[in-house]
């Protein structure tokens, strides 16, 4: 048999768990290895390309959020974020930061800003950012 014509593959023991052979001899898990949501968006809350994202929010200066189409199982998921390089005019104001804030099962908050010369964090609309979410879907 060389062809299998199907719509859905699911695990036999657990429907939502399929093991896949990795590049070598170790196995990894298909569902656990898939990013459950990702997005690129700008500081105006304008969503670029994305997966499982219904919308992006501009919640104020340096405060943003992305909302999931399909919710995560809980808020114990992993979310990583990065920011495009930006500059801020001001002496010593060059330490930039983009971090994950509150995580909910249906959304995640992302904050960005810079640390000024007095080591005070200032919320700031810096540049486009991206986020990737890994964990268990509901």
């Amino acid at each position, binding site marked *: *048999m*060389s*062809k*299998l*014509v*199907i*719509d859905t*593959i699911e695990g*036999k023991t657990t429907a939502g768990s399929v093991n*896949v*052979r*990795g*590049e*070598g*001899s*170790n*196995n*990894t*898990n*298909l569902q*656990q*290895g*898939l*990013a459950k949501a990702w997005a690129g968006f700008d500081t105006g809350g304008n969503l670029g390309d994305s997966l499982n994202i219904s919308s992006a929010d501009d919640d104020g200066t340096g405060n943003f959020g992305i909302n999931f189409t399909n919710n995560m199982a809980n808020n*114990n*998921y*992993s*979310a*990583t*974020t*990065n920011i495009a390089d930006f500059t801020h005019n001001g002496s010593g104001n060059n*330490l930039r*930061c983009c*971090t*994950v804030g509150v*995580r909910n099962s249906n959304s995640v908050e992302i*904050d960005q*800003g810079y*640390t000024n010369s007095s*080591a*005070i*964090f200032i*919320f700031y609309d810096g540049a486009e950012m991206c986020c*990737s979410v*890994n*964990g*268990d879907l509901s």
Partner: protein
Amino acid sequence: MSTIVGTNIEVTNIKYDSDTTSMIISNAGQVSVKSEGQAITTVKLQQGLIKQWLYLDHVNATIKSSLNTSSFTDTNNGRGDFNLTSAFTSVNDYGANYTGNAYNGNSWNTNTANVKMNWNSTNTTTKYDFASYSDGVSAYLDSLYAYSLAFGDLA
């Protein structure tokens, strides 16, 4: 044909219909899938999978959830190692990304974090290191919310 229930299916192509191939399985067990735009038929499924991820509460030294993570070693303030269950092929065959908020109370001034990966140059096929640094207090600090992921070639 609507359902196949079994342990082993030996197959080369998985198709929606006779004209539409969704996946191709090589003799090494590697799976190629069709791209979203359908122009590329050789997107590598295994290469696209995240091989390790976790959510770490570094302040309380607790892994909240994870994949392919056996433990983490708290090496110093704001610094540590993530230890993997299944190894990567070599130290040159994987990448990692880390996000943390160096935590010193509920204040943005002290929660900002600059992060580093492989800062101590001690990465191995089953371990990579990380660091969180707070500009607010000019010190390495544990992150209450730390997230990390790694991708590449499993051994």
